[in-house]
Structure formats: structure tokens, C-alpha cells
């Protein structure tokens, strides 16, 4: 790879009180790439991506997007760069319906004086939401129902659809398939493929080796808050990945 990375984290540190969640973690993803971020529970995966997208601010280290330092930016500013995140703890409003969740924080207003008064363009948002879900082959039983009335899998699909439809450059997904059955998981993986086909990049956090082997171009492994391996999917195997996750095998150059 000779191009500059789309996103790069270098030697990021983050502590919560006594817990050192990140001890100099690094990460890289290039344009049009799907990279799986793997690691044991507590390895710091969620913390790393929250630090990248502005929910946490790093204690030290660097985060660069297209060469520009974005460490400590406000989540809104990071979003404006074209980065969207599906958080492990979903971040949906359970009492709002599907269109309202898809447009949360980006509500569309009516044109003219009504819009100036803050009146929502509900019809237009509903129509666009249906279209987005259709384009992504996401099937929601009742789009006008509060999202809490949907199954865990459907809620997850809405969160994924929201991220994919707003992200211009990079989608970050934190265990998006953890709550899903086999068919829904396959749907999310197919969606990831399509995001890549559109020239965008995906960071996929997952514990599922088969899923990762199926969809990822590369795999980066975190252990105890540090990167311990950078692997190319078709040059590695499950044993090596598990070895990296458990500490049985370390790649010297990774950190």
C-alpha cells in the first residue's frame, strides 16, 4: 500500500481512572478497504473507535484522517468529515420511529416560512427513509412503530442503515452482528461488501472469525490496549488470529 491511510491512529493512550484502556494503540485503514478490528473482551476496541469518532478524547497519541489531525474533535465535526459509527450500545431513541431515528440530529425542515419556524418535513423524511431501507435491502415490519417495538435484529439494521446512508467515506461498526441471527448477519455482511463497492471504507469490530474471514480485506488485532498484529486476510488463518488475540503469537512490527 503506497497511498496515505484514510484513517490512522498512532500510539493512542486513554485511561479511565485506574483502568488503562488504551496503552499506545495504533490502527490503519486505507480507502476502499474493509478492516476487521479484533481482540478479546476489554482489549480496548470500543474505546479506540470512540476515541476516533470524538465520543472520548485521547490522553495521548495521534488520530489522523486523510492526513489531518482530528484527535479530540467534537463528534459532530468528525461526522462532517464523512465518518459514521454504529455503536455497540446502539444509540437509538427507542420511543421514536424508524424515520425519526434515521434522521436523528439531522432532521429535515419544510421549505419557506414553516421551515424557518422549525417545522419538520415529515413526509419527505418518511419517503427518504423507506427508500434508504429499500436500497440497503433492510426490511422493517412497521416503519411508523417506535423502534423499541422492533426486534433486536431490526433495531440493529436501522442503526447500520443510518450509518451507511450518512457516511461519505468511512463506516465504523462495533459488533453490528452480535445480536443477529444467521440471515440478518449475512445481510449486514452483504451490506459491508456493497459499501466497499461504493468506494468507501469499513471498520468492522467482530468476534466472529468466519464473518471476518468472509468480509475483511485485512485484520488488525488489539490486545491489552495495544495493536499486536496486522494481517492480510487471505495470507492468514484462524489459528494465527486467535494466537494474536490470546497473546500466544505476536507480530513484532505491529505495535
Amino acid at each position, binding site marked *: 500500500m503506497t497511498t496515505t491511510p484514510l484513517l490512522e491512529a498512532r500510539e493512542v493512550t486513554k485511561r479511565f481512572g485506574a483502568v488503562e484502556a488504551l496503552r499506545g494503540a495504533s490502527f490503519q485503514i486505507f480507502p476502499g478497504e474493509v478492516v476487521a478490528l479484533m481482540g478479546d473482551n476489554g482489549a480496548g476496541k470500543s474505546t479506540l473507535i470512540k476515541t476516533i469518532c470524538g465520543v472520548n478524547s485521547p490522553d495521548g497519541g495521534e488520530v489522523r484522517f486523510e492526513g489531518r489531525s482530528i484527535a479530540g474533535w467534537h463528534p459532530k465535526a468528525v461526522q462532517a468529515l464523512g465518518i459514521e459509527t454504529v455503536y455497540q450500545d446502539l444509540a437509538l*431513541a427507542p*420511543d*421514536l420511529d424508524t424515520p425519526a431515528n434515521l434522521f436523528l440530529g439531522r432532521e429535515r425542515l419544510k421549505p419557506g416560512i414553516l421551515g424557518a419556524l422549525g417545522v419538520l418535513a415529515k413526509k419527505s423524511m418518511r419517503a427518504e427513509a423507506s427508500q434508504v431501507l429499500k436500497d440497503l435491502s433492510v426490511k422493517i415490519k412497521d416503519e411508523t*412503530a417506535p423502534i423499541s417495538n422492533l*426486534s433486536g435484529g431490526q433495531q440493529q439494521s436501522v442503526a447500520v442503515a443510518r450509518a451507511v446512508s450518512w457516511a461519505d467515506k468511512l463506516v465504523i461498526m462495533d459488533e453490528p452482528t452480535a445480536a443477529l441471527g444467521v440471515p440478518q448477519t449475512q445481510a449486514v455482511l452483504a451490506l459491508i461488501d456493497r459499501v466497499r463497492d461504493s468506494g468507501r471504507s469499513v471498520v468492522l469490530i467482530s468476534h466472529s472469525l468466519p464473518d471476518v474471514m468472509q468480509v475483511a480485506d485485512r485484520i488488525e488485532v488489539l490486545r491489552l490496549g495495544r495493536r499486536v498484529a496486522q494481517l492480510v486476510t487471505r495470507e492468514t488463518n484462524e489459528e494465527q488470529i486467535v494466537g494474536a488475540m490470546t497473546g500466544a503469537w505476536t507480530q513484532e512490527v505491529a505495535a
Partner: protein
Amino acid sequence: MSTGTVTPTTDEQSLEAENLRSRRGFRMPRLLGSATDITLILILIVVVFAVLDFQSFFTVQNFTQILINAALLLVMAVGATFVLITGGVDLSVGSVLVFSGVIAGKVMELFGSAGWGASLAGIAAALVAGTAWGIVNGLVITKLHVPPLIATLGSYGAAQGLAQIITNGNDLKNVPIELVDSIGFGRVFGIPILVIIALVVAAIGGLVLWATRYGRRTYAVGSNAEAARRAGINVDRHLLKVYAFAGMLAGLAGILSFAKFGTTTLAGHATDNLNVIAAVVIGGTSLFGGVGTMIGTVVGTLIPATLANGLVIVGLNSFWRDFAVGVVLVAAVYLDQLRRRSRSPR
């Protein structure tokens, strides 16, 4: 990919069952939405009193009286609806009402307590005083991170105390006659101006809640504040606006009350906060936030008012109202809990 052709998973089957269940429960007209059940209860109450004493109860005059009696609570309940939907609570409203009335009285004294000039100054002063308390509530909650229950309990005491200090404990009674004749007792096409003001406030509040981005974000903040924050919504600023708005409406109720009763009624509003919360919750707004409608609040305000009126007409002690309202309140919250429990686990 073809998720549509696979046999339904258990997940999808349980979803089907869930949809059926909710469809059966919420089949009623869209307009009322979750306020349907409670509207039926109000209609039932009206029918019962109409059957018991049609001649005295079922008259335009008596219904107007019920609306007059409910007007002040309704104005405050509109603000409380927003507050409760954010998942908060405002215990300070009755005290802020009294405080705002006192400030209005003092300001009107400066203008000789007579004439339209004094009246308008009094109205403005009450609105400013109420908004100020609302801003204090909002700042204590968002900046000092004091829970709304305690923050507004504090201003409940503080506002009442200051009102007593300013007046030495003696009610002000210097209302300009213009104010009494208009807001206090005036009518337009036979409808009391007091009632018109309350209904207009409720209508505007309802439209803001239902149709605007501000309303949408009020639901979002109450439904999942963290989700709202991550979606780029400034949650603290939104909460501050909601409490300021509720305070302003308590201030408005203050000048309405002063005009209606001709006195600052220092001792008359100690339980307004509970009555307002009861009305809003009866109307289907959830104490846990994220859910509620303004139509529900209007109905929820009318139920206690209708009970109080009807019970007296049929010759029962009006204390039965307190009993009945208590029962309806608990039943409303129980229904809300049932609805929440029927949700899929998050």
C-alpha cells in the same frame, strides 16, 4: 443476498406476535394516539354525571365553568408535558406562579396599579420572573448536575420563600381593573378570555411538540439522551430551553391567577405541582420520558376538573375528587408500565 426468501426465524415470529399485540391495543383513531384510553375515561365521567344530573351538569355554562377552573393548571401542564417528555420533572411551578404574581404586583405598583400601561408591565414582569426561575432550574440541572427532582424542589421552596419575604407574608391585591375586566373575567363571543388563553397555549404547545424539530428533539432527549448527544444534539441547551419554557408558562399562570382572583394567593398553590404532574401523567405522558401528547395533557387536566365539578353537583363531598384522581393516576401509570413491559428487550 435475499433475506426475504429465508424461513422466518424465531426472532421474526416473535416480532409478528408483538405487532399483533400492539395492533390490537392501539387500533383506535390516530389523532388521539396513546391518549385514546384516557379520552374514553373522560367521556365516561361526563356521561355518568350527565345521567345523574343532566339539568345542572350538562350545560354550556357548566362546561365553561369547568374550563375556567382548569385553565391555570392547563397552562402549567403544557410546560410540564415538555419537561416530563425529556424525562425530567418540575416541582417548582406553583411557587413560581406565586412568585411571578408578586413580582408583577410590585412592578404594577410602580405604575400606580392602574391602566393598560401598568397591566402590560405586569404581564411582562410575570413572564420574565417565571422564565428566570425556569433558567435557574435548567442551569442547576445541566451545569451542576443536580437531579431535576431535587433542583426544582429547591426552587419550589426558594421561590415561595422569596415571595413571602417580598410581601412580608401579606397578599398583594392591587390589580389594575383593566386586567380584571379582560383576563380575569372578560369574554369573547361568550368564551372566557382565560379559557381562550389556556387553549391557545395548549394548541401552540401541541403543534410545537408534534410538528417541529424542537418537539422531535424533546422526545429524543427523553428517550435516550446519550443517543441524542451522539447524534450531535446539544442536550444541555435543549433541556435549558425546556425548563425556561415551563418557567415562562408558570409566570403566565401567575399573572392569570392574579387577574382572576384579584390577589397573589400566597398560600393557594402549594400542591399545584402535584396536580400538574398528575394531570400530565394521567394524559399518558411517561414519567420515564420519551412519550407523551398534548391532547393527552388537555384531557388529563379536564378529568380532575370535571370530577370536582360533577361530584359537587351530584351532592358528594369534593374530597371524593382527590380520591378518584388518585385512583386514575395510579391506573394511568400502571397502563404505561404494561406498555413498556411489552417491548422487546434492548
